[in-house]
């Protein structure tokens, strides 16, 4: 048997076959594909951009801090420059004046890049949906990979969203790139 985690079935793990092979070989030889090894590396070193517009940013900081500790999942360092970031967590409201800046930030990030829409404002406009000055969801500007609902979402919710993103990254293929 492969790895055991409470509340997660054996079938839920995607790499069971690899683990069985790994056990059979005595732990010295690892069979894998390029996609697997690349995705493993990518999904466990997703570096976010320091980008926060409002309240959700504080919860994002709390997720990175002592108790919740982002770094356990490889979401290690906040990068201040989009050129070094892999994921942009849109934490907070985006208004029309900010929208071109966000688009430019996204364009400046190197591929592969991902977007997490954190909080009600980033998903749909949230409590400000009736306002005259609001972008009703960041998916109108940039493609979103994971939506994390809440106003603001708890750090646990963001961690779950990040893990969902990692699952998504693990399904990618280097050679047959799908259009986003």
């Amino acid at each position: 048997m492969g790895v055991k985690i409470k509340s997660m079935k054996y079938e839920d793990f995607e790499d069971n076959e690899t683990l069985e092979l790994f056990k059979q070989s005595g732990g010295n030889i690892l069979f894998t594909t390029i996609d697997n090894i690349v995705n493993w590396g990518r999904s466990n070193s997703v570096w976010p951009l320091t980008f926060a517009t409002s309240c959700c940013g504080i919860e994002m900081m709390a997720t990175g801090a002592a108790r919740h500790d982002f770094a356990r999942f490889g979401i290690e360092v906040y990068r201040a420059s989009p050129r070094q970031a892999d994921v942009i967590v849109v934490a907070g409201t985006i208004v029309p004046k900010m929208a071109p800046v966000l688009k430019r930030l996204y364009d400046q990030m190197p591929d592969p890049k991902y977007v997490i829409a954190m909080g009600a404002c980033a998903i749909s406009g949230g409590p400000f949906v009736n306002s005259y000055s609001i972008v009703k969801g960041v998916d109108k500007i940039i493609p979103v990979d994971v939506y994390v609902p809440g106003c603001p979402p708890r750090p646990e919710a963001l961690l779950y969203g990040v893990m969902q993103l990692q699952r998504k990254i693990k399904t990618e293929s280097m050679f047959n790139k799908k259009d986003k």
Partner: protein
Amino acid sequence: MAEEIIIPEADNQEISINMGPQHPSTHGVLRLVLSLKGEMVQKVEPHCGYIHRGIEKMTESMTYQQIIHLTDRLDYLSAHMNNAAVCLAVEKALDIEVPERVKVIRTIMDELARIASHQLWWCSFGMDLGGLTCFFYGLRDREKILDIFEETTGSRLIQSFYCPGGLMADLNPNFQKKVKDFIVYFRKILPEYDELLSGNIIMMERAKGIGKMSKEDAISYGMTGPSGRGSGFSCDVRKHHPYHAYDKVKFNEVLRTEGDTYSRYMVRIDEMRESMNIIEQLIDNIPAGDFAVKMKPIIKLPEGEYYQRVEAARGEFGVYIISKGEKNPYRMKFRSPNFCNLSALDTLTRGHKIADLVAIGGSLDYVIPDIDR
């Protein structure tokens, strides 16, 4: 013969660069257009509106109970105080006297929020100066307050706990014990903050004598809160115009006269101590009784103008309501402390280096959604 120093023309030129809207030390989406001569800041021009969400206009189509939830999202670190401003304004207009229990609980909650806010400020101020340790220490202790909030109010950051006439819910049975535990814990921890940052020679070098603001200038810019009190401007609304139960507790208004970044820093550190004193005086004497006055489901304020101010974590937060007797306000204006504090940034930073601009900005502790509304 003394050698003539030739300054190349490029060094003497004034260049203007953008800082923000995406910059880690502007604490959000503030855009500053700097005019620089070499590394010296000649002029700072803040550009607002990158998070203007039209809250003031939205309030005109909402009832007073609904408005509470929007005020949280102005200055999310002092959500309780912002709620209190609207609640107190509505209560004043309707001439409602809330029970003593409500007043005391509101005072405790406000002070807890103030401590949590100053802890987060301490984290980010340390980070602005390059000390990442502060970030982990400060947020570790902040989580304890958030636990207390979560148990009683059901939410960590944005609580919307107050409503016109009282509170949304009664206290959790664990509340008193948890708050007392926290005070004991934090009294022990606060000297650690001092050891780590307040007495740090690098921090002192970067903060002392940087960004001086005289008392007269602070008053004319309308700087309030710890930023104003760091310049010796006695502006504590809790002291001068007591609301809640502040007239029943003894506390000192923290004042410093140096007016530099370091004095603004120390005011906030000392305020955390004062907040703990206030909580200690009240936590054992929470009166029994109702947690809210029964209100009509639709509140209609009588025609007129109402203003209420409270002391938020960053300064004086005011709510100005014009009512025409409807269930919605005719016009609602928020006086946000950060906007006035930001206006002083140009005077504070003129002639300093860019790195000092970051330190001064950190000591002003602005929250951008509060500036843009």
